[in-house]
């Protein structure tokens, strides 16, 4: 390698690389299930990589490997030193390293999903790590959660409310959640899912396919076309 090797990853512009999609949300809301569902739905048409940020162990990465929805080598696990939000927001170095390793090893890729460790409502991804982000809630946390807001709920590019099949059992009113989310999100999209019933999370997959397509359109190298 030349001493003057020009490292094209130095600048975080998006040219010539995959779209980086962050998936965040509280513990147990279904981030890993959504990641698996997206791999299931999008794997046949897109070149994928996945980075997981387990709170501890490699539980999430192992779940994805066992699910058989993606080549296990295309999943990388990052340890976060007790601070899952630090690893996706304040000090993203290890996650960026993992994303770039996947791109170097398997690239070119279309989409790299970075799944955060379960955290709280204030956790969001740095723009230096994720180009777009999804925040995942579930109905069992109560239908007041969207109203309470927080950066994840209000600012994510897509809010997913998962486990709608449980709504009648936990007394969650989906109409209230939908109305409150629309109010705090100022028109940004909200999708309701039950990944247990729709194992491909098709509405979310369709949204992701759309942003990958527009990303590719905006960031393709003009000199290659």
């Amino acid at each position: 390698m030349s001493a003057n090797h020009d490292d094209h990853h130095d600048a975080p512009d998006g040219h010539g690389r995959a779209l980086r999609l962050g998936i965040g949300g509280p513990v147990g809301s279904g981030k890993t299930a959504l990641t698996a569902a997206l791999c299931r739905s999008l794997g046949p048409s897109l070149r994928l990589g996945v980075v997981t940020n387990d709170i501890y162990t490699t539980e999430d990465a192992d779940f994805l490997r066992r699910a058989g929805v993606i080549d296990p080598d295309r999943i990388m696990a990052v340890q976060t030193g007790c601070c899952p939000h630090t690893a996706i927001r304040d000090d993203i170095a290890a996650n960026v390293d993992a994303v770039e390793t996947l791109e170097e090893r398997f690239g070119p890729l279309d989409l790299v999903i970075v799944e955060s460790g379960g955290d709280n409502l204030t956790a969001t991804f740095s723009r230096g790590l994720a180009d777009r982000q999804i925040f995942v809630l579930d109905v069992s946390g109560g239908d007041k959660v969207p109203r309470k807001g927080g950066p994840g709920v209000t600012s994510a590019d897509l809010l997913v409310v998962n486990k709608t099949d449980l709504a009648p059992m936990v007394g969650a009113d989906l109409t209230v959640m939908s109305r409150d989310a629309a109010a705090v999100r100022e028109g940004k999209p909200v999708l309701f899912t039950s990944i247990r019933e729709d194992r491909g999370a098709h509405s979310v997959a369709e949204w992701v396919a759309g942003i990958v397509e527009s990303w590719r359109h905006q960031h393709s190298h003009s000199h290659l076309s």
Partner: protein
Amino acid sequence: MDGTAAGGPAVNGAAPGMPPTHGLAGLLLLADSRLPAGGHAHSGGAEEACRTGAISGPEDLARFLRGRLATAGRVAAALAWSACVAAHDPKFPDMRRPNSHNTAPDGHAHAADAATAWRLLDAEADARIASPAQRLASRTQGRLLVRTAKRVWPSTALGTLAGAVPDGAHHPIALGAAAQAAGCTPAQAAMAAAYTSVTGAATAAVRLLGLDPVTVHRVLAELPLADLTDSVIAEQHDWSALPAHAAPALDLLAEQHLRTEVRLFVS
């Protein structure tokens, strides 16, 4: 070495003619735990020591940190000092002996020679880290630090180092090169290396055991960071004679940690 490199900036701590604040802003940014270079997820063996019960309170932690500073910390400080001296010297590469230079007729080192010299210094670091797990952790931190520092403080030395050791130079080498790029003196680079050799482990123990953070900061304040740094600077070794203090307990902790199923930290 007389403290200055011909035609280059002063390389020692108390250089005459330098303002007293010289390099300090860079040092503060570089040593800050908020530096976004991945350091927050490394415990330097403290997680495994907490898990096995070797660290259970502030007294154990203080002993652990004193040992870490006197071994891994001392070696890291000397390596960071050497790397910073090398990065400061316009006639780099041949820094195996501080006063011998092997330069092109125009007085500047060829980039290829500089790359060879960086690999040599990195190999000196490699030879001083017995545990493969610690080598891996050191290279990972070095790679992330170089990548971050190249964007924060672009410099020739960092570019050459990144190209010379693309999988990641050892962390103290990266720290020395980054310190030069940040405007620090080699003494400040050595201090940053000594400081980061203990602060990550201390913070990890606070998070894992719920220790009183003020008590732990007092433990840190009582560590002989300045004495250690001063003595490292006073020695000014050739690369091959740099300190090589082994810490078998840290090696074992690192190896066990990598094999532990439940872990929150990378190392």
